[in-house]
């Protein structure tokens, strides 16, 4: 029944309850793999489904994603051990996301980050006002496949171009897919700066990541 409770806690966006339940999983030596796959993930999947149907809203998705993260952090070590023992590696796509230097607008980025988490990606959010080196260092550190950069201002959009140039200068361009977004950006801008993709909405960003990692 703990699996149903985990699912429900994620759906309620109740991070505290998720933490209590995950500790119980560890204390009682229950299967961390099952707790994640049959509990936490089921909850976030159900949120995703209801969101698509217009039954759930952003606070549901974002709080659900936060609750999921709390659970994954608690179970993380045991989960890796169990998976390694079973010869199973984590094949989820890894994404580094952030808002570029000089730009403090991060609501859109937070939404995209939550939607990516809800879609099952492993998301590393580096926050806002971050230099291109911070994006790339994080991507190197966590072994990401995608780097996502957000800019809301016409005066900070150039940083997205800078990111692509920086990767080139480090000889890392082919290692990562670079995707960009934000109010004033367009597909034309993305093509111009040499990004691998652009999306206007959070939903489209998730679809883009699936496509790029296919």
């Amino acid at each position: 029944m703990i699996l149903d409770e985990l699912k429900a806690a994620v759906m309620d966006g109740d991070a505290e309850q998720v933490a209590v339940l995950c500790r119980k999983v560890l204390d009682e030596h229950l299967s961390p793999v099952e707790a994640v796959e049959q509990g936490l993930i089921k909850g976030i999947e159900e949120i995703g489904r209801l969101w698509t149907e217009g039954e759930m809203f952003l606070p549901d998705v974002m709080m659900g994603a936060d609750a999921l993260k709390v659970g994954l952090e608690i179970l993380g070590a045991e989960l890796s051990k169990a998976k390694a023992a079973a010869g199973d590696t984590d094949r989820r796509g890894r994404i580094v996301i952030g808002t570029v230097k000089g730009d403090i607008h991060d609501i859109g980025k937070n939404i995209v980050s939550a939607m990516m988490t809800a879609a099952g990606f492993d998301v590393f959010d580096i926050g806002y006002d971050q230099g291109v080196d911070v994006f790339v260092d994080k991507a190197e550190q966590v072994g990401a496949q995608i780097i996502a950069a957000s800019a809301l201002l016409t005066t900070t959009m150039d940083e997205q171009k800078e990111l692509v140039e920086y990767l080139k200068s480090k000889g890392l361009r082919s290692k990562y897919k670079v995707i960009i977004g934000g109010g004033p950006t367009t597909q034309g801008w993305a093509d111009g700066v040499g990004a691998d993709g652009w999306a206007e909405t959070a939903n489209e960003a998730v679809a883009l990541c699936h496509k790029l990692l296919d």
Partner: protein
Amino acid sequence: MSKVSLKVLTDEDVRRIHEASMKLLEEVGIEVEYEPAVRILQEAGLKADGRRVFFDPAYVQKKVAEAPHDFTLYARDPRHNVHIGGDDVAFVPGYGAPFMIEAGGTRRLATWDDYLNLLKMAHACEEMDLSGGMLVEPNDLDDHTRYLDVLYAHIRYSTKVPMGSSYGASGARDTVELLAPVFGGKEMLQEKPVVISLINTISPLKLDARQTGALMEYARWKQAVVIAALVMAGSTGPATLAGVLAVQNAEVLAGITLAQTVNPGTPVVYGSASSITDMRTGCVSIANAESALLNAATAQLARFYGVPCRAGGGLTDSKAVDGQAGYESCLMLMSPIASGVNFILHTAGILQYWLCMSYEKFVMDAEIAGMLRRYKRSIDVNDNSLALDVIKHVGPGGHFLTQMHTKQNHKTEMRKPMLSDRQSFEGWAKDRLTTEARATVLWKKLLDSYQDPGLDERLQKQLQTYVESRKKEIVK
């Protein structure tokens, strides 16, 4: 007090919002990301912890009371002087959109040509009281120096009052330096505000370095500023509108307090662009019943503090000049007009929540503004307008079309539309022109009607030299 006066809050509601804002200012404080601002507020006796400034309510109220109730913005051509405050309303074109949407729905980046077209339309359009500011972002000009080109163009091509740059203290300084020679030197500016600039807070509860720098510089020169909050219910503010107003009010009052601390008597406008979040996508929605209520509430709050008010606009979330654009823009202009807002930025041209401008939308909104200016004038009731003599004279069953009273009064009493179609069905059916198609004809006609007001050649050279030398410094 205007006869048209919509209230959406009781006096008790206004008092409670005021008290909530005072609590926020005193207990939570405002994050001020500009060291000189923190310093001057500390010197004035406010407590600060790092960049967090805690505003003492008594000090806030004392400073806000020093702001003028109303003021006049002086234009290069005195016929375009604008009174800001009281029962008056100033219509100002759309501001800051990076995109243009063309008739038919194609979206593209705005250019310098678009900029100049819109500037000339704003100058030629009778309904626009100011020439505006960053009418669209001219993407083909260097983004670090385009504000200089924009300011020069306003001075060169229009004699209406422009809006200044909020690109930090240096943008404000350049604005003052460019306008000073036009008005006989900087000393003159201290007496007469000749520019008004948009200073935005960062919600919730922050003032950033760039905007705050510009605010302080303008205050030094006693030039007018609109201090505006854009709280989005559900994301950058609470989901409840009263809470949105409490946050907005705290931010705007902090800005006004800072301006009056720098230079008491600086003309300020209490501004709000507060709106809601679409809770499915996180997108801002700027035209809806809730935002219309926030506009009207903002007017009441500004009146409570005795300062002029900015809110509303020809706002829409629509991406085309269609039914949605029409009904949303009308609601978002009607509410501020009915509630007594004094300064309506974004009156004309906006599509897709401030991201786009459209020539067709510009003239459609100007039509709405014209209707609402008439609406605001209300109904004169006097011997002449009651028209008893002529009613008696015509008597039962007659008509008024051939009466001198009709001939003498209809033009001032009834506004003639410039865009609306009032033909018979057959008349309309000959060409079957939609609003958008008629608007295309109209904006081209408006642009054609633009007459260059000219600018003294020596002054032109002087300003151009300044612009070029500043560009070199900035690009370096």
